[in-house]
């Protein structure tokens, strides 16, 4: 569904043109003044989806590690495959210039270590940053304490930074994609993720059924 916009500066040609190319703000189709309004609106949608999916509860989130609630895996994997396939379609139809979107840079060893530390933090704290915000919103004290912890953790990092600055900046591969690293085209990764996700949905549903039989006090 191409979006139609009224175009004033097309002059001699047509008064309507088919809006083809995102991203809108980097391409100056929406001016930067709207940036923060859009940020809040996108945030509202993000917070709503997280809370409505049950991510404001640490027990729901931690369930993914103990087999009694795989809601994290279902929402997360579905979102990744929808976004992957969607971005490829947007690129294919010429609606979005994928070369203009931000690709998270790769710093290999620091990011592996970061993920390991975050993994321990996830199991101990029962939240991740975004989900803790939604927990706070509905009145979870544990979410508030987790967010205070986040603040302290980043503060400790900032203060101690000189001791590991070299490591922090090591392994810089630039803004590389899976395709840049492996030479395999992006659609194959989208397909691979989809197959893994579908298999995981089926396997975890079976695990969940067995584990839940032994949990009487938890309201699913």
């Amino acid at each position, binding site marked *: 569904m191409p979006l139609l916009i009224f175009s004033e500066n097309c002059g001699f040609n047509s008064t309507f043109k088919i809006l083809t190319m995102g991203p*809108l703000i*980097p391409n100056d189709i929406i001016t930067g003044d709207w*940036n923060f309004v*859009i940020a809040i609106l*996108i*945030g*509202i*949608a993000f*917070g*709503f*989806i997280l809370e*409505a*999916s*049950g991510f404001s509860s640490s027990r729901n989130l931690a369930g993914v*590690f*103990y087999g*009694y609630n795989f809601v994290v895996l279902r929402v997360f994997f*579905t*979102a*990744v495959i929808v976004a*992957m396939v969607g*971005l490829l379609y947007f690129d294919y139809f010429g609606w979005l210039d994928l070369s203009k979107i931000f690709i*998270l*840079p*790769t*710093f290999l060893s*620091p*990011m592996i270590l970061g*993920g390991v*530390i*975050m993994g321990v933090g996830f*199991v*101990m*704290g029962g939240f*991740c940053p*975004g989900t*803790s915000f939604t927990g706070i*919103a509905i*009145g979870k*004290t544990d979410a508030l304490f*987790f*967010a*205070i912890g*986040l*603040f302290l*953790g*980043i*503060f400790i*990092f*900032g203060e101690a*930074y000189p001791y590991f*600055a070299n490591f*922090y900046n090591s392994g810089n591969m630039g803004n*590389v*994609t899976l395709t840049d*690293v492996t030479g395999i085209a992006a659609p194959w990764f989208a397909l691979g993720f989809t197959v893994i996700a579908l298999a995981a949905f089926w396997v975890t549903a079976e695990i969940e059924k067995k584990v*839940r039989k032994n*949990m009487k006090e938890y*309201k*699913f």
Partner: protein
Amino acid sequence: MNKNNNKRPHYLNPYFGGVLLGLLVIATFYITGRGLGASGAVKSTVVETVETLAPQHAESSPYYSKYIPKDTSPMNNWLVFESFGVLLGGLLSGVIYGRVKKFRVEHGAHTTSAKRLVFAVLGGVLFGFGSQFGRGCTSGAALVGSASFSFGGVIVLISIFGTGYAVAYFFRKLWI
């Protein structure tokens, strides 16, 4: 699901929630060219706090100084506004589904509120610390990074959840 449980909280179907979240990631890229995030907003808050309390320390720090803009506040940042929206959106959903209540602690059946809060802070400290090495957390790195085919995003995704499963046994008393 569990038919015996008539007090079951009402959540979105997880696959429907996932589709909505995936569409939101696409929309965010389409509009802004960037993705969602969460830990970045806490980082801005830390930088703002340090800069307010100890401006010279912040400006001489090789880390904080990277995030102090010349002509504006560190809080004047896309992710800060977005995270404010996350609070509002969470509140909106909580109001609609009747989950907004006065502040309370949620914990597993075999632990106490005090213990839960101690581990919540410790978990937060680790998550905040790790997110700096990871260049983002579950939102910005694992979800949006992976969805946009970033190699680093997938590394963080595998690393967070792989470690979670590896250490879950040691913290089982907190949850089951």
